[in-house]
């Protein structure tokens, strides 16, 4: 069941000049949150921000009643959100959307880029609890964009690419050696990140007939399936990213790839 809760900000931690972790504390017990679920946060303090903003749930601590978000500044809302201070109230609707499905086979690759690495930690946790040890591949423009390596290492091996080669392999994620199609060994790919990245991965996956789930970031108004603003074209017609996604198997999408 979806909840609407007034959380209190418990921490805002900047990771670099435009990326931060936001921790929110609730008096209420938290419902179960699955990897890929997201929340709609109301940013009341921000002038010129009318609608809520959707963010993947990055982490959850059921004991302390804390949920965390991994956020990149994109515009007005995300920059104002970072200015909330400890103890200030934030109204959140959650958990929303579907989630990344458990793989049937154990060799899986999870790829994140940009703010798309937000759900990776919960995926790692969830998969580990279910006996799956993924390999992570995270990409950024420079070393400065690479986060969470130590944390993800708890759940599986972490590969890194940077466009300028300042950390890990040089290039885009799809240029990483794992993508050598001759000996690509993963049975399933999960990915979340910029659309061009996800489309390049989807292209590889569909060419090589590999199961692949992507998490979409369509603009939303309601986040709960009421407005029909967030649709993506699927083989069965337009579907709401907020309720029937954000996670889709690429075989269901009508992506031009």
């Amino acid at each position: 069941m979806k909840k609407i809760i007034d959380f209190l900000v418990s921490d805002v931690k900047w990771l670099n000049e435009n990326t931060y972790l936001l921790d929110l504390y609730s008096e209420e017990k938290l419902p179960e949150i699955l990897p890929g679920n997201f929340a709609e946060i109301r940013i009341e303090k921000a002038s010129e921000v009318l609608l809520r903003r959707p963010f993947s749930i990055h982490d959850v601590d059921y004991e302390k009643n804390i949920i965390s978000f991994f956020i990149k500044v994109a515009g007005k809302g995300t920059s104002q959100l970072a200015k909330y201070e400890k103890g200030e109230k934030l109204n959140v609707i959650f958990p929303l959307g579907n989630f990344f499905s458990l793989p049937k086979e154990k060799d899986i690759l999870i790829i994140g880029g940009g703010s798309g690495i937000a759900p990776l930690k919960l995926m790692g946790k969830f998969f580990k609890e279910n006996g799956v040890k993924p390999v992570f591949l995270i990409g950024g423009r420079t070393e400065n964009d690479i986060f969470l390596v130590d944390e993800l290492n708890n759940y599986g091996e972490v590969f890194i690419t940077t466009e300028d080669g300042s950390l890990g392999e040089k290039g885009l994620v799809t240029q990483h050696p794992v993508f050598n199609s001759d000996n690509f060994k993963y049975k399933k790919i999960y990915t979340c990140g910029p659309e061009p990245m996800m489309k390049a991965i989807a292209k590889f996956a569909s060419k090589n007939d590999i199961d692949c789930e992507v998490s979409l970031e369509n603009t939303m108004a309601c986040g709960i399936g009421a407005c029909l603003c967030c649709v993506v074209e699927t083989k069965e017609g337009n579907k709401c990213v907020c309720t029937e996604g954000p996670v889709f198997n690429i075989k269901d999408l009508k992506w031009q790839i």
Partner: protein
Amino acid sequence: MADLKVKIGNLEFKNPVTTASGTFGSGQEYSDFIDLNKLGGIFVKGITPKNREGNPYPRMAETASGMLNAVGLQNKGVDYFIEEIYPVVKKFDTHIIPNVNGSSIEEYLEVTEKLNNIDDIKAIELNISCPNVKEGGMAFGVKKSSAIAVTKAVREICDKTLIVKLSPNVTDIADMAKAVEDSGADAVSLVNTFLGMAINHKTRKPVLSTITGGLSGPAIKPIALRMVWQVSNAVKIPVIGLGGIMNAGDAIEFILAGASAVQIGTANFIDPQISVKIIDGINDYLNENNFNSVKEIIGGLMREI
């Protein structure tokens, strides 16, 4: 507790607060957040004769105190509504009011006819003002002759309370309201969205796949309020007011301007509990100002300032 009951045509509503078509799904989407039984009514998402996929993504753009949408009446068609959606929502103790659409008079009639057979449905809202479809929709609502034609045709076959939803994209909305009143409407609701547009100057492209879309939200409230006031002064049938209502104060302003009931639209996205908060707020206002009934303030705007 003040008396919140109002009448729209022959129909009594337990309170004047309803939710606007297209912003509240079928109601179910909000049942985790509020008790739907508390609402005066639920205007459900626009219905067409057949399944419609609507417009391509992107369909939404935020603007200053508003939003543009270009959903384009995505819905699964009237039969799906009757068989799958209505049976689920009819159990709520509130009026479920379908929003009827078509790209021709025949299509409007097709939807109306099927809904007319369902006893529990007490009213329909005839949407002649959707700005997001290539055919029909707003085209009917901005021309008096076609507004009259579709209203008359639907009236003929419709035993329910007939509410006609007007487009604000006209020179003289009072004149339009009188025309549909004369054509048999039991009530009018206004406003639907304003035709607007957003451009991303960085990409030099329109933000919406359809270039233009419908503007809603607090930005439009002053214009919507003016229109509700003008229409209330022009017609004898009840007026349902909407457009940018965000809180009880806004709702009361529409009622003072002459609305017998209000619809809450975009505000639901921002606070899914707002409709119930507005009911409570209206009740508090009446108590604080020593009114026994909301009916006492309908059209109660004092002229001298």
